Every structure is written in structure tokens, then in C-alpha cells.
């Protein structure tokens, strides 16, 4: 009797430590990655990194300014047409979406969420790069759109569904037209959640690399024309990292540090917004 009790207790304690260990091991890489990013990236982190163009191998200094600008442009371009499309689609699904058509749309959105991002690069390549016969910011944005839209459609629908019926009924009872109720009252009530979803999707596309490899391709110089190859921060991290030069490796770490700071600021900021409301 006593030995069985002891065994059970020992197993219980053992399993407890195993679960502690699992949680520790899950979180550990986050700290390791951050430690290395700061340790290896901080020494190259100067103002000129943010304001200068890349320089050839061996030349000291140089920065990722064109990549920062390129990432900014292509993200903005993506959001310009994706946000209205995704939010309207989310409104349709939440407010009117019953029946076969709506479930087909939902199914498409769900499926698109799981498609690997490199496939979106192929999509942008075939639809934009091939007809235009050149790599361009347009192509990059069209690939990122396919990643951005499903995420935002889903959050918009979910957020609109959390708005209580009573809000809609109250507005309708006041004689406000239904479409105005939806657009100016229901959407406004859910706006914090929708904006959070948009920001989280934005944080994601800012860091996406694979779909940009053969759509905007990258560029060593300033480029403002949308029909030309353009630089982007994640692409710079990648090409510096796989280069054989030690000083470019340093730059990869520094660029990665800038990139992750940006991604996490958007990410944590977005989460903070909804947390505040609750």
C-alpha cells in the first residue's frame, strides 16, 4: 500500500517537473534569439544604418535606408486596397453572410490562411511580373495582399459578431437606416478590434520575405517608382545573411534587430489597444 502511494507520488512529482521543463523550453528560444540579436546587432546600430544606402563589400558603414523605405511603400500599397476589400468582405460575412455563397467565401478565406506564403509569391509573379516583364513593387504588394486579406476578413467578421444585437436593434429603432447602422455604429463599436486585426496583419507582412523574393526582388539603390524592383528590409536581412562576408553578416544582424523592433512594436501596440478596452 505504502509503496504504491510512493510510486504514484513520485510519478506525480516527476510529471510536474516535466511540464515545467516543457514550458521553459518553449519560451527559451525567444530569449536566446533576442540575446543574440542584441549582442550581435547592436554594434552596427548607428544612425547611418537607418539613413544610408547599402555599400559594397569591404566599405565600412552603409545602411538599410532604402530597405526601410521600400518596406514602408510596399506595405502601404498593400494596405491601400486590401483594407477596404477585407473589411467589406468581413462586413458581408458578419451582417448578411448566410447561405451557400457565404460559406464558400468563408471556406476560401480559411483555405487562404493556410497557404504557404511563398505560393503567394508565385501568384504575384505570374499575374504581375510576367505581363509587366519586370519585378516591381506592384508585384510585391499583390503577393502580400493574398496574405493580408484572409487575416483581416476573419478578424473583422469575428469582431462584428461580438457586437451585441441590442446595439443594432437600438439603432434601427431610432430609425437609422440599416446600412448606416452597420457602417457607422456596429463597425465603430467593433473598430478597436478591427484595427488590432489590421495592425497584426501589417506586422506580419512587414516581416514576410518569401513572397518578395521574386516579386519586388530587392534593389541596392533608392527606388520610388512602383514599377521597378524595390528593396525591402527582410530581403536585405536574407541577402546579407547568406553572403560569404563577415561584415555583411554583422549588417544582417543589425538589420534584423531593426526589423524585429518594428514588428514587435506594431504587434505589442496592437494587442495593447484591445486590452485597454476590455
Amino acid at each position: 500500500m505504502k509503496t504504491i502511494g510512493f510510486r504514484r507520488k513520485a510519478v506525480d512529482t516527476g510529471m510536474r517537473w516535466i511540464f515545467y521543463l516543457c514550458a521553459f523550453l518553449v519560451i527559451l528560444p525567444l530569449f536566446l534569439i533576442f540575446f543574440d540579436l542584441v549582442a550581435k546587432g547592436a554594434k552596427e546600430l548607428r544612425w547611418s544604418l537607418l539613413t544610408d544606402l547599402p555599400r559594397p563589400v569591404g566599405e565600412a558603414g552603409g545602411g538599410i535606408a532604402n530597405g526601410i523605405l521600400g518596406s514602408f511603400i510596399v506595405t502601404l500599397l498593400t494596405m491601400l486596397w486590401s483594407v477596404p476589400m477585407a473589411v467589406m468582405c468581413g462586413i458581408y460575412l458578419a451582417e448578411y453572410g448566410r447561405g451557400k455563397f457565404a460559406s464558400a467565401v468563408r471556406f476560401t478565406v480559411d483555405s487562404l490562411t493556410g497557404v504557404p506564403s511563398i505560393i503567394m509569391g508565385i501568384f504575384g509573379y505570374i499575374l504581375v511580373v510576367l505581363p509587366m516583364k519586370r519585378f516591381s513593387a506592384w508585384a510585391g504588394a499583390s503577393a502580400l495582399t493574398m496574405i493580408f486579406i484572409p487575416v483581416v476578413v476573419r478578424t473583422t467578421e469575428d469582431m462584428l459578431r461580438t457586437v451585441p444585437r441590442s446595439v443594432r436593434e437600438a439603432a434601427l429603432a431610432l430609425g437609422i437606416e440599416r446600412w448606416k447602422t452597420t457602417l457607422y455604429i456596429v463597425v465603430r463599436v467593433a473598430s478597436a478590434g478591427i484595427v488590432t486585426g489590421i495592425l497584426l496583419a501589417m506586422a506580419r507582412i512587414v516581416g514576410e520575405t518569401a513572397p518578395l523574393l521574386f516579386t519586388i526582388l530587392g534593389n541596392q539603390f533608392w527606388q520610388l517608382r512602383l514599377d521597378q524592383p524595390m528593396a525591402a528590409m527582410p530581403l536585405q536581412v536574407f541577402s546579407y545573411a547568406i553572403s560569404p562576408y563577415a561584415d555583411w553578416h554583422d549588417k544582417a544582424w543589425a538589420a534584423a534587430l531593426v526589423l524585429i523592433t518594428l514588428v514587435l512594436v506594431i504587434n505589442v501596440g496592437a494587442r495593447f489597444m484591445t486590452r485597454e478596452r476590455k
Partner: protein
Amino acid sequence: MGQRTLRKSKDRIFERISAFFAFLVLALGLLLFLVLLHASLPAIRRFGASFLLSRTWDPVAEEFGALPFLYGTLVSSFLAILMAVPLGVGGAVFINDYAPAWLRKPVSMLAELLAAIPSVIYGLWGIFVLVPVLRDHFMKPVSKHLGWIPLFKGPVYGPSMLAAGVLLAIMIVPFILSVSREVLATVPVRQKEAVLSLGGTRWEMIRISIGQHCIPGIFGATVLGLGRALGETMAVTMVIGNRPEIFLSLFQQGYSMAAVIANEFAEAADLQLSSLILVGLLLFLVTFLVNLAAKWMLERMVRGAGRGDLGK
């Protein structure tokens, strides 16, 4: 009367507009599939089913077979699942049943941050930190002493199937953890209390509740993680070694479907381009089916839990 029809028609117009955008999204999804299918037709016509079975990937001779990439994708993802599922589920149990209240939020928030790190940064860290550490402190000693086992045979370079598997595991653990947490949360508290009140230990309570309620859900979480691992591109490209051959040893280089697209697409033309797009189409179909299966399993799980609530 006139005003009322006007109002109605305005509502109708708004509904139509929103439906139009929903249709656009639907059309984009269809377009993606059709575009991939159309562009890979030349490769399908030329190679047919042998594309899946051939080991040759020779742009000069225009002979293309996807087997090494299929193999690399499957093996690296399988390795990742092998490591990530126990850790993710264990972490979820920790948060759900062991962590003090003040620790729950920080731990799950940190796991979420892990999911937000861009994959190119995982790759960078993989090249310069993970690969050297694995090579010097794991692969070299293991292949020295256990090299007679085919899985651990040298030579050891560093970039390898194992490195890709470990890095993928780190990347998909957050998803498995968060889905497992949701699944674990569906276990009725009453049932847990019942086990404890019968004199069960905490571990026995967890074992029984997981065994009775959570297996399909955890399986769903696993499949979801698999879907992510299969399509991950940058991190794998940077650490797998990119060699289009099949080695049984986990310590040798491999290649994956996503990685070959990433490496060769920008410079490919004609049949090579079409073959790469066919690799993309295959990847698309596989991840599509895998995600569908995961969704189906998780939904069944939630419905099952709903029925349990009705019984209360």
C-alpha cells in the same frame, strides 16, 4: 411609400457592394488555384506522375523530378512535429494546470511573441547560432559514437535535415501550444474535481482528462502545426543545406519544396519555371488538405465539448 422603397434600395445597394467584395475574395482564391494549375501544365504534360517519383533535378538537361524535395519537406516537418508536439502540449498543460495565476499571461504572451518573429530572423539565427551549436555539440559527437546507425551517419557539415527540423520545431511550437490550450480548456472542471476528490494525483487528473477529452483536439493541433511546417520557406532554406539528393542520415543536407522555389524561381524560365510552379501547386494542395483535416478535427472537438455542456 416612395421613401420606404428608397431606404430599402439603399440597404440593398450596400448589401450588394459588400457582397461584391466578398466575391472578389472568393475570386482571388479561385484565381490562385487556376493560375498555379495553368502555369504548371507544361510540366504536368511533360513528366506526368513520374514528376513525383524521379530524383533527377537537372536544369541543363531539362529533366525535373520532385522526389528529393518531397522527401526533405516531409522528413523535416515530421522531425519538427516529433519535437514540437510534446513540448507544446506540455507547455499548454503547464499554463492550464500548474502555473500560478500571475505567470499564465506572461508565458502565453511570450509564446505569442515567438509566433510573431519573422521567419527570416529565425533563419538568420539558425545559420549563425543554432547550426554551429548543433554541429559541434550534438552532431559531431553523436556521429562519432553512433555513426554506424544510418540516421546519424556523417560527414557532418552543419546545415542539415536535423537543423531544419529543430528550427521548424521552435517555430511551430507556439501554434501547437495555443491550440492545445484551447483544447485543454474544454475539459469540464467538474470532471477534474471528481478525479481529485477520488484521491487522484494531479498528474492522474491530467492524464484522465486528456485521454478522455483532448486526443482528437491535440491531434488537430498537431496537424495544424504540420501544415505550417510543410510550407515554411525562409528558415528552412537557410539551414537545410539545399542539396537535391536523398540521404537517410539526418545529419546530411537536404532540400525542401518551398526552398527550391525560393532559390531557383527568380532565375528560372520555360520548363524549369513550370516545374517549380508544379512543385508550388503540389505544396499548395498538400497544405490545403492538411489544414482542412486539422480544421475538421478541431471543429469536431469543439462540437463534442458543446454536447458535454448540454449534459450539465
